[in-house]
């Protein structure tokens, strides 16, 4: 019984111990009785986390750019092909929205739209190369001035991510060919679509940044 006395004495110094409150499942967690995971499947959460990392990469490059140029405006003309690239990627995002809707309904036409997205990505890359060539023709190279340096760095790093997106599309294609399990396919396409939206968003961001610094 000595132990009880000790326990009660300890009691007064401890906060009241009470049974856990019922989990309310506040939307972040998946349900009331299974609060040990998120409302998102792992592949989706992991994709978002990875995009977080990539976001910091582009933010770091952008802030380096802003700091480096101080207030100096862009001294070269942004080639008009830039707008073509932008339209292509905006179209790509619309295609992707369609793809995701069809995917959710398990409608087989999502495959075609994935193909369209791939074609648009290739078109984007071609337009990018033309943009770079136009700049070079103007005499604007990576070393010309800080604005051009960062323009090339940001667009090349972005283009590399477009290539990565193409690789993801190819992987989806392989799953489609192989007639992989629906969950596998769904996961692959879902990740790819999210990633592509991100790549499109980064492009818009880059264009906006250079618009802003040309003011």
């Amino acid at each position, binding site marked *: 019984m000595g132990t009880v006395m000790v326990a009660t004495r*300890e009691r007064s110094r*401890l*906060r009241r111990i009470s049974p856990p409150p019922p989990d309310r499942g506040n939307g972040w967690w998946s349900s009331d009785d299974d609060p040990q995971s998120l409302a998102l499947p792992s592949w989706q959460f992991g994709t978002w986390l990875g995009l977080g990392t990539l976001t910091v990469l582009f933010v770091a490059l952008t802030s380096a750019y802003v700091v480096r140029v101080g207030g100096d405006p862009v001294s070269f003309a942004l080639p008009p092909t830039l707008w073509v690239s932008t339209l292509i990627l905006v179209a790509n995002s619309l295609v992707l929205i369609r793809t995701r809707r069809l995917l959710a309904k398990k409608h087989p036409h999502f495959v075609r739209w994935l193909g369209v997205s791939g074609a648009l990505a290739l078109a984007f890359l071609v337009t990018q190369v033309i943009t770079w060539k136009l700049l070079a023709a103007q005499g604007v190279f990576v070393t010309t001035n800080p604005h051009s340096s960062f323009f090339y760095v940001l667009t090349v790093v972005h283009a590399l991510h477009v290539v990565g997106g193409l690789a993801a599309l190819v992987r989806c294609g392989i799953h489609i060919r192989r007639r992989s399990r629906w969950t596998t396919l769904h996961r692959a396409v879902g990740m790819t679509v999210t990633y592509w939206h991100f790549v499109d968003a980064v492009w818009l961001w880059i264009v906006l940044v250079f618009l802003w610094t040309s003011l």
Partner: protein
Amino acid sequence: MKLSSRQAFGYAAFLLIFTAIAAWTIANKTWWFPPLASVQGAEIDNLFMLTLLITGIVFIAVHVVLAYFIWRYRGRPDRKAAYITHNTPFELSAASTVAIALVILVGGGTTLWTKIQSQPPADAFTVEVWAEQFRWTFHYPGADGRMGNVDVRFISDENPYGLDPNDPYAKDDVFATEMHVPYGKPIAVILRSKDVLHNFFLPHFRLKMDVVPGMKTRMWFTPTQAGVFEIPCAELCGVGHYIMRGVLTVESPEQFNEWLSQQTPVEMSQ
């Protein structure tokens, strides 16, 4: 549980001995800063002592408590640990105490920082410094009393210190391998680098500042005594970083003027 007692005793003993040695060597200033030679340095030293006092008390207290707990609560089969999970009032008061100590340190520190980083007084004597791999060069005005403009872009074999050819005040400027300053006024230093990062460090004055290519960095201080003081480089600048040693002489205005008059201006071939 004899092993437990042996480990506990050894641990507690070591912690106490270590704490005692640490406290004693510091209180005794057995190995200490070089002799103080500037007004700013005196204030830095004061802040250092305050910080040392606060951190010293914590260091000793934590180690004494740790040693005590190790010994007092060493494991024995007949004992049982207490089931204590937390104590919020304690946590809050501990955090508050720490916060108060920090506010004191931050308050003192930021006030001093603002002072040190302020503009030098109007009567400050200005010296400009070129840092390069692996030496210091000190730039003084010539007979016209005006410092000429220098820039890395003008550096050439004929113009090793980058004097601006369009600046009439530059022609008679003096470049010395030693730094001399007159005692009795604040000294302002403007720092430039030719090549890589360096750092102009004055241990006796408790001051240092990076020398950054592409920028001018500045610092100022008021010497409290005449003397000869070494200037080590304090930012890795290559294989000669450790022998990039400058020498600062603080001397009477008369001695300084005499020294300056003996320095010959650099001749620039036009």
